[in-house]
């Protein structure tokens, strides 16, 4: 695998946020040539991929066409770092998606802007970890995320 500065992150990230992305055209670049998400070419198996992969022996499963096991997606680079996930299939369903790598966001310059709107709730935002189904408001990073998830699913269909 290519060397990279991205930080390995485990466990404490937010919940099952599947496949979200951003508002304008994508420029995330997969590390290996690949078609678009719908037709992504499966990457070689988990063992060829990053460190955290631990593929179980795939077993045939039900109607979904997905074989049980843990599949590591390709890592996709974007300008903020690398994104790579592994997907756990159990009983033919996606039961877990775990990030192997996610980039840190950049600090934004904090221009102070004061505007009075007394009818609004106003509070300091918190940094929460929570179980969620989907995430609203995402861009490059999540595009890479979706790509990585898809490539893992493609392996599960083999």
């Amino acid at each position, binding site marked *: 695998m290519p060397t990279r500065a991205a930080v390995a992150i485990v*466990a*404490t*990230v*937010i*919940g*099952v946020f*599947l*496949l*979200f*992305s*951003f*508002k*304008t*055209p*994508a420029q995330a670049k997969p590390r290996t040539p690949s078609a*678009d*998400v*719908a037709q992504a070419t499966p990457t070689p198996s988990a063992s060829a991929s990053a460190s955290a992969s631990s593929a179980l022996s795939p077993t045939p499963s039900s109607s979904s066409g997905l074989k049980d096991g843990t599949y590591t997606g390709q890592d996709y680079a974007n300008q*903020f770092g690398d994104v790579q996930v592994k997907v*756990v299939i159990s009983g033919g*369903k*996606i*039961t*877990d*998606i*775990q*990030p192997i790598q*996610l980039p*840190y*966001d950049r600090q*934004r310059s904090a*221009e102070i*802007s004061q*505007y009075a*709107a007394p*009818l*609004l*709730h106003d509070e*300091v*935002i*918190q*940094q*929460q*970890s*929570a*179980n*969620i*189904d*989907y*995430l*609203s*408001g*995402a*861009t*490059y*990073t999540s*595009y890479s995320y*979706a790509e990585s*998830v*898809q490539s893992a699913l493609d392996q599960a269909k083999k």
Partner: protein
Amino acid sequence: MAIGAMPVAPRQMAVQHLMGTVISIDVRDMEVPSGAIDAAFAWLHQVDDRFSTYKPESEISRLGHGELTLEDCHPDVSQVLAICEELRIKSGGAFNAWRARVDGRLDPSGVVKGWAIDRAAAILEQAGAANFCINAGGDVLAHGIPEAGRKWRVGIRHPRDPQSVATVLEVSNLAVATSGRYERGDHIIDGRSGEPARGLLSLTVVGPRMTEADAYATAGFAMGEPGIVWTATQAGYEAYGITQNGRARYTRGLADLISV
């Protein structure tokens, strides 16, 4: 809590890259005709071919270049441009499909995606689906429920920490659209000045239809902090804005959706 701690209901899911983003359709009904998701994606591809400003042969590109008149185009083009015009007036020009691009070329993309998602949802419903979620680049339309006993949980991304969310909304039959500056820098143009929008890190708008939620998020974000209040004046829609000093300002109706 660790990712994936929540059990996952049965799902039919498909993901495609189109309209310049990644779109996923996730259906949780126990029985849905297998063609439903395909039909929804076929519709989205049709929209992309017709409205993409990145495809020189699309009707919208040819219209923008004067190679077609509006009468030459599919009726959907007139419909979308009418929605754009309505939004331009409503927003005092903050949303302007004719000034959405730095080069000043016609770009109704701020309306097209949301409008297409609403129609895709209608296609799924006609096929018998009642519980589904369409996620188009972080704009999320959630119908029904994901599993027994709870609503869909949609996080609003924290502007400075991709590992966390600023809040979680519990929604059903609602669209959640966010405009923001997360990683792309200034990418929404204020139609009034032609300058990139500043003042908010993100603006999330929640309401019954994605067409309006997405367009209001775009327009409200372009206005900066006053956009939060502006959105609140749109019937049926609620807003959650994150300001540059790290505060959340949101409407009362939105407070009711926040997960406790």
